[in-house]
């Protein structure tokens, strides 16, 4: 999937393209880097004292910050005029594409350049494996999916572009011929996860994915779905074993045992759009003379994006092949997963290289964003659950998931496995068998979106749990408590969590909350005519991280004690920059006034190299390659999978610790006149920052500027950069610094002494997490529970969420207000997903290019209990508990809690989303 060997920063592809991603020089216009380094030296920093975000001022003053804000004239050194590209997409994927009727675009509307599938072929471009599929549908073929690009038209002037795009909007300039039916494609992946626990919680599992590896059915026959059951005909041995255990579990769930309550239910979820408010856009300039390609992009995955672009051009004909690519990554107007590994950037690249010498902008309008942007997978789930009527314990669980992946594979395979691994949520179930398959379809491509399959499977689960509790009958929270996974229990993969598991605390909080305790009274209380009232609860756990996550952080302190941070993670609104500054401040006592995000060029001193695929690598390979002290399993990750706080800030935190230990602490010792031989010299862990001063024992507190001045004067460590890697545990390494062996949760380090340059510190020992961890579903989980009260009008079916409460455990909240904001936003998105948002998958769906926000309705303020939405963050289990990732988990319980409340109010269970007023009206009729 990836280049076998990558040398970061000085990476020159085999084809001769250098990819330096360097910052732009300052010119008359503020440079891109200067605009995007926040809050900026000598600017007010709202994050000081926790009064706001580091990006506060630019965002309330309309500063240029987002990729969609930049034009050629804003870029120092670029030509002044911007040309504009129009990406024409297919509104039909069951007839042959015959071409565009460009004759109607004459005179001033005539495009200067038209890029088609032919041009891509002639230019010899290479579609990266991850995006495999025609970049443009060739004439004479049926589009692979609705919304597939057909051609790109580039216009010299904005006015020509503006008028031409109107001419295209009714679709009549796109010509189709014979009906062929949709293009069929192989599925994107099928897996079976089966676990049979041992007889006691302490005994080893009989069978689990951890023990046996992940298995897939080997035989698809020629049906669109894998053939799961007849394992006897299965040739692949590992699959056969899982299938035998799995089928035995299913046999128990046939409902013949009178002591076993068996529920057999189907649940369907819809396709939705992440609907980040800033549509995808980018700016490119290919200077044909210098052969330099410059890009301004806004994506969650900068490093992957840069790699994909370099791959695209790696074998291009000379005219289309830059010698050098410079990419700048801007703040994003929302992401929610939909900007992680988006193919859009490939088209920005094409716009630039097919119109050399001219800066070109490509931007979706909202219709196009619906037509071409990544969607959330629609799921069909069939679940069986068995519960002992005597004990109220869940004994067995089986489920089959079918995902609609749309036209390109993108993350479909990963979403399927993550969703399956979440199928049993917070519960301890000794026998589990889950199959999953992600299908190709002619729908718009589905990929990463907040919740990543788990909002689908845990919605099905948490509504089923509610139904089971009612059938037993048991109190819904008591039933959950009885079956909750203990902190040392095993997940359905067979591993244990390595972080706190606080389900019981959450359940206690939910149970004691007034919305829950007053549920019966509220239901019985006379209301306005025709209003029915219901209360629902749900509690979930969501993994954070992907199993191969990394980040890079660089911290510098100047002699005045001012702190600069650079990080490879970009900002999509999740508060990455503020979280970084806050986490670094824990270690070095001051809040950075320069935070630069989405930086890939700041880490050259680490001289990293990588090889292989960290997700699939075997142990022997890792053992061999890790001997090179520059080698790391992966260079840089997307800001995704809720890993911003946990992984994204980790490298910077480790760098800050180095600066403290080898810069500020020895400076403090010097100022306190404590010699190195004094026993107190080793007590650095006991020092504390209080209001910007370092406090230790009864010595006079020292200010950061004093310490920084001393560290600079004494040429102590004043800057550090690290790379960290996590495969369900952080890699750690030992580094020789100042004649000590320093162990850090980092696998690469460079330090700066005084005002000197950064110098790499080669690790002398490293412990990468074992490659067998790749079999783990997750060891990192954050939990969230929600209780909601709904009021439904019998006559109209209109539903109002009267009150809600979410309780989240997030480890140490780096910026509590940002966490609360995420929880409030997750609540709103959960409401939209449950009650409002839906996209038809195929014809009539967003691929037709006619969808906008009048038809696709997302939650507004009036849909939410703005003054009755309570968010509680559990305090960390200890002062040094690391931050957890919560961006996704805060959305998930909202959905089943609303559905359970609807059941409580109406006595009707809905098994598909969204639940509309018409459906509610029908249920109440």
């Amino acid at each position, binding site marked *: 999937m990836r280049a076998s060997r990558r040398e970061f920063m000085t990476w020159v592809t085999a084809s001769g393209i250098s990819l330096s991603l360097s910052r732009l020089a300052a010119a008359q216009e503020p440079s891109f880097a200067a605009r995007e380094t926040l809050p900026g030296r000598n600017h007010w920093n709202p994050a000081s004292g926790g009064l706001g975000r580091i990006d506060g001022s630019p965002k309330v003053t309309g500063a240029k910050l987002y990729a969609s804000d930049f034009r050629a004239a804003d870029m120092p050194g670029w030509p002044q005029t911007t040309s504009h590209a129009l990406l024409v997409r297919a509104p039909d994927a069951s007839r042959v594409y015959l071409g565009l009727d460009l004759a109607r675009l004459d005179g001033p509307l005539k495009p200067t350049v038209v890029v088609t599938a032919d041009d891509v072929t002639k230019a010899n471009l290479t579609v990266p494996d991850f995006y495999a599929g025609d970049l443009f549908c060739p004439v004479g073929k049926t589009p692979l999916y609705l919304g597939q690009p057909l051609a790109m038209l580039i216009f010299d002037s904005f006015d020509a572009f*503006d008028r031409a795009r*109107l001419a295209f*909007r*009714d679709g009549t300039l796109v010509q189709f011929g014979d009906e062929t039916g949709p293009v069929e494609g192989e599925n994107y992946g099928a897996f079976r996860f089966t676990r049979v626990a041992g007889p006691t919680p302490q005994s080893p599992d009989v069978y689990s994915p951890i023990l046996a590896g992940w298995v897939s059915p080997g035989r698809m026959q020629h049906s669109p779905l894998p053939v799961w059951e007849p394992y006897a005909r299965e040739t692949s041995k590992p699959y056969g074993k899982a299938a035998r255990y799995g089928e035995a579990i299913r046999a128990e769930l046939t409902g013949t045992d009178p002591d076993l309550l068996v529920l057999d239910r189907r649940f369907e979820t819809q396709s939705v759009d992440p609907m980040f408010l800033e549509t995808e856009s980018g700016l490119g300039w290919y200077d044909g003379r210098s052969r330099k390609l410059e890009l301004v992009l806004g994506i969650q995955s900068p490093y992957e994006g840069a790699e994909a672009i370099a791959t695209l051009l790696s074998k291009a004909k000379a005219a289309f092949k830059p010698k050098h690519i410079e990419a700048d990554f801007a703040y994003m107007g929302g992401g929610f997963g939909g900007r992680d590994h988006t193919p859009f950037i490939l088209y920005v690249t094409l716009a630039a290289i097919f119109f050399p010498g001219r800066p070109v902008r490509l931007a979706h309008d909202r219709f196009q964003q619906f037509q071409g942007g990544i969607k959330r997978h629609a799921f069909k789930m069939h679940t069986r659950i068995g519960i002992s009527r005597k004990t109220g314990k869940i004994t067995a669980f089986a489920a089959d998931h079918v995902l609609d992946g749309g036209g390109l594979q993108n993350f479909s395979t990963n979403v399927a496995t993550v969703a399956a691994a979440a199928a049993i949520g917070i519960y301890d179930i000794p026998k589990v068998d889950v199959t999953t398959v992600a299908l190709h379809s002619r729908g718009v491509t589905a990929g990463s979106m907040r919740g990543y399959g788990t909002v689908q499977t845990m919605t099905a689960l948490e509504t089923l749990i509610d139904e089971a509790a009612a059938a037993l009958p048991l109190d819904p929270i008591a039933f959950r408590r009885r079956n909750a996974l203990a902190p040392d229990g095993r997940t359905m993969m067979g591993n244990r969590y390595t972080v706190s598991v606080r389900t019981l605390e959450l359940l206690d909080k939910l149970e004691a909350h007034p919305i829950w305790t007053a549920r019966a009274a509220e239901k019985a209380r006379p209301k306005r005519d025709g209003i029915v009232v219901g209360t629902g609860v749900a509690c979930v756990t969501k993994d954070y991280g992907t199993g191969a996550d990394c980040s890079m952080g660089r911290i510098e302190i100047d002699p005045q004690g001012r702190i600069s941070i650079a990080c490879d993670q970009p900002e999509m609104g999740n508060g990455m920059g503020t979280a970084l500054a806050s986490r670094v401040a824990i270690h070095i006592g001051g809040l950075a006034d320069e935070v630069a995000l989405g930086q890939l060029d700041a880490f050259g001193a680490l001289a990293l190299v990588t090889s292989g695929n960290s997700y699939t690598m075997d142990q022997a390979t890792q053992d061999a390659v890790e001997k090179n002290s520059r080698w790391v399993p992966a260079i840089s990750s997307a800001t995704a999978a809720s890993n911003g706080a946990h992984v994204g800030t980790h490298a910077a935190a480790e760098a800050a610790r180095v600066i403290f230990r080898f810069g500020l602490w020895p400076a403090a010792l010097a100022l306190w006149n404590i010699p190195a031989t004094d026993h107190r010299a080793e007590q650095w862990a006991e020092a504390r920052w209080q209001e910007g001063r370092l406090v230790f024992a009864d010595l006079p507190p020292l200010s950061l500027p004093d310490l920084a001045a001393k560290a600079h004067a004494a040429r102590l460590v004043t800057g550090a950069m690290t790379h960290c890697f996590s495969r369900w545990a952080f890699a750690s390494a030992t580094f020789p610094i100042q004649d000590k062996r320093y162990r850090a949760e980092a696998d690469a380090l460079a330090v700066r002494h005084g005002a000197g340059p950064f110098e790499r510190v080669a690790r002398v020992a490293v412990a990468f997490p074992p490659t067998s961890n790749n079999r783990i579903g997750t060891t990192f989980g954050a939990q969230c529970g929600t209780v909601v009260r709904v009021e439904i009008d019998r006559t109209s079916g209109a539903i109002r969420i009267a009150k809600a409460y979410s309780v989240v455990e997030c480890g140490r909240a780096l910026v509590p207000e940002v966490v609360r904001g995420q929880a409030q936003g997750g609540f709103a998105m959960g409401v939209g997903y449950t009650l409002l948002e839906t996209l038809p998958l195929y014809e009539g769906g967003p691929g037709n290019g*006619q969808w906008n*926000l*009048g*038809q696709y*309705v997302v939650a*507004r303020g*009036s849909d939410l209990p703005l003054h009755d939405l309570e968010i509680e963050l559990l305090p960390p289990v200890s002062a040094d508990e690391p931050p957890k990732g919560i961006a996704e988990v805060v959305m998930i319980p909202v959905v089943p809690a609303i559905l359970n409340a609807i059941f409580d109010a109406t006595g009707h269970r809905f098994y598909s989303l969204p639940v509309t007023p018409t459906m509610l009206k029908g249920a109440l009729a």
Partner: protein
Amino acid sequence: MTSSLRTRGLAAAAVLAVCLVRVDAAEPVPAGRLAPPQSFDAIADTHTRSAAIFTELGKVLTSPRCTNCHPAGDRPRQGDHSRPHQPPVFRGPDGFGTASMRCGSCHGAANFEPGRMPGHSDWHLAPRSMAWEGRSVAEICEQIKDPARNGQRKVEDLLHHIGQDTLVGWAWAPGYGRTPAPGTQAEAGALVAAWIASGAACPLK
């Protein structure tokens, strides 16, 4: 695909049957068109003829172009599917929106085609008493004749409102992405005139 085609065929046949029964001697009229008043001449009974003419006019009155801004509640609808208006706007005290969300903030003096935005200088909601959404043609007919619910208009005033009012006239030139009301405003006006001349009778149901 096959089944939906079949359904569509059935629906078309049903509509045709209704037209034939309803209009009696009139020629079937293609979708999107209005039958002229004289096509009802064959109906001998004046009352029945008048009611039939109103039923034909009903095609206009029940078009989304009319009902969207003659809503049952305080929130207009939009588009051919008559979805609730986004963003949520409400009639406000004067029918021109609330303090923060005035109709004229978005709806200019005329349609603005690049934005797919319909417009008229007088863009506003019909009063609550004139709600047509969800009502049958017969109900709208009774309502339209009732001075208490038609803004104290005489039936003759409807001739101007439907036949000449330029805001009503927008319904026949609604801009990109919206199906115009059937026929033309002049044809609708002619139906109103013929309906009044024939005694302004209402269909039974």
